[in-house]
């Protein structure tokens, strides 16, 4: 173990030096607002992992009539109060972080993959293919994301639950990634070394992916960060409107829907207040970090 530690600290020093050498990260870390966002997100990830390990999903979904009071105000025993089904709100809100990050990650990952595919296809084939793909993406981009998601979510069967929201939002966010990837891919294709590699017999798709991906890692990361926040808020919005989580799920959107509909007007404000607070903090974290990243990447935006 001890040798391992010394080795990893060596690696760490190398990593830290590389970080220091990168103007992007230096810029980012000097931005106090972005660092604050990073801290918020880090906290949420910690909460999510803690909740996933500490709580059992079945007991969190189960109603607790008979053991707990119904709609009890926050107290030493129930920090965030209890809901209409006599469930303790506190573990449910923490577990909501796991749900939000899990489904948010799935959405962002899926739209990144689709975006890479569309962007590379557009850049590689060019001409009419490029034109049709990118103009279609532009139109999708100009739609308000919630309305587009509302239209798409109906195509997927209800049994999918939250995955239904993920599927719809994946299609909504794909264009943003496609645009970024296409730009980077075009730059790579213009470079001469592609011709050189091609002469050595590399096949086209592999070639593109290997050379394009490293080149658009930074803009993809910025897009992912900004869309992470959007994905989490939109998944919750779809759940709130009834197109996502099923009743009882510890997703923030569902808790808000139930809490507003059945708790708020009878005074049980804690039922919707805490899920909403966590949701807003998470989204704010991603937006602050994303904004800072964009500034660090493109200083022109700032001054």
């Amino acid at each position, binding site marked *: 173990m001890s040798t391992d530690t010394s080795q990893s600290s060596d690696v760490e020093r190398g990593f830290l030096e590389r970080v220091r050498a990168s103007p992007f990260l230096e810029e980012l870390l000097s931005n106090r607002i972005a660092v604050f966002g990073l801290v918020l997100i880090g906290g949420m990830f910690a909460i999510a992992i803690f909740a996933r390990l500490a709580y059992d999903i079945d007991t969190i979904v189960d109603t607790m009539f008979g053991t707990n009071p119904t709609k009890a105000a926050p107290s030493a025993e129930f920090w965030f109060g209890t809901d209409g089904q006599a469930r303790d709100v506190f573990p449910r809100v923490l577990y909501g972080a796991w749900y939000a990050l899990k489904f948010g990650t799935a959405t962002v990952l899926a739209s990144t993959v689709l975006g890479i595919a569309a962007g590379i296809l557009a850049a590689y084939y060019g001409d009419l293919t490029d034109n*049709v793909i*990118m103009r*279609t993406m*532009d*139109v999708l981009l100009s739609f308000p994301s919630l309305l587009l998601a509302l239209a798409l979510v109906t195509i997927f069967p209800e049994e999918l639950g939250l995955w239904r929201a993920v599927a719809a939002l994946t299609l909504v966010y794909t264009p943003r990634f496609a645009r970024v990837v296409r730009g980077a891919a075009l730059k790579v294709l213009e470079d001469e070394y592609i011709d050189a590699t091609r002469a050595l017999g590399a096949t086209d798709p592999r070639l593109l992916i290997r050379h394009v991906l490293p080149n658009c890692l930074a803009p993809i990361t910025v897009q992912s960060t900004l869309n992470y926040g959007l994905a989490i808020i939109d998944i919750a919005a779809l759940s709130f409107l009834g197109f996502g989580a099923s009743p009882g799920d510890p997703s923030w959107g569902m808790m808000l829907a139930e809490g507003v509909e059945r708790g708020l007007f009878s005074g049980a404000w804690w039922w919707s207040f805490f899920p909403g607070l966590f949701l807003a903090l998470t989204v704010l974290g991603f937006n602050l970090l994303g904004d800072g990243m964009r500034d660090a990447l493109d200083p022109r935006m700032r001054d």
Partner: protein
Amino acid sequence: MTDSSVPSSRPRAERYRALVVGALRWVAVGAVLGTGVSLALLTIWSPKGATDTAFALGALVLGFGVTAWSSAVGLGRTIEGMQERLNVSSGWTEASAREAFFVLSWTGAGWVVAAALTSIALGV
């Protein structure tokens, strides 16, 4: 290109001819797609289910193309002007959008007609 991106300085008749040829070409492509999708879906669904779904997919392409084409024609100059003003370029030009959605609209039209004809042929 053989469609709406043709410069307007060319004689009118020639322009129209190019537009019609382009439209016919993409209608043909759409017809092949519409028939192909109908027949492919036939292997897993009933004739009605297969041709209905093929028709709906074609209608999606047609409707999207037409909406986007007319929006591009309507908002084109505004968006180009705004990009110029903000000094950003997303690669969007009215001509490129018209061309792209010209293709989608006619493909969708051919697709929809082919799917409808397939359903009639199958006696749905």
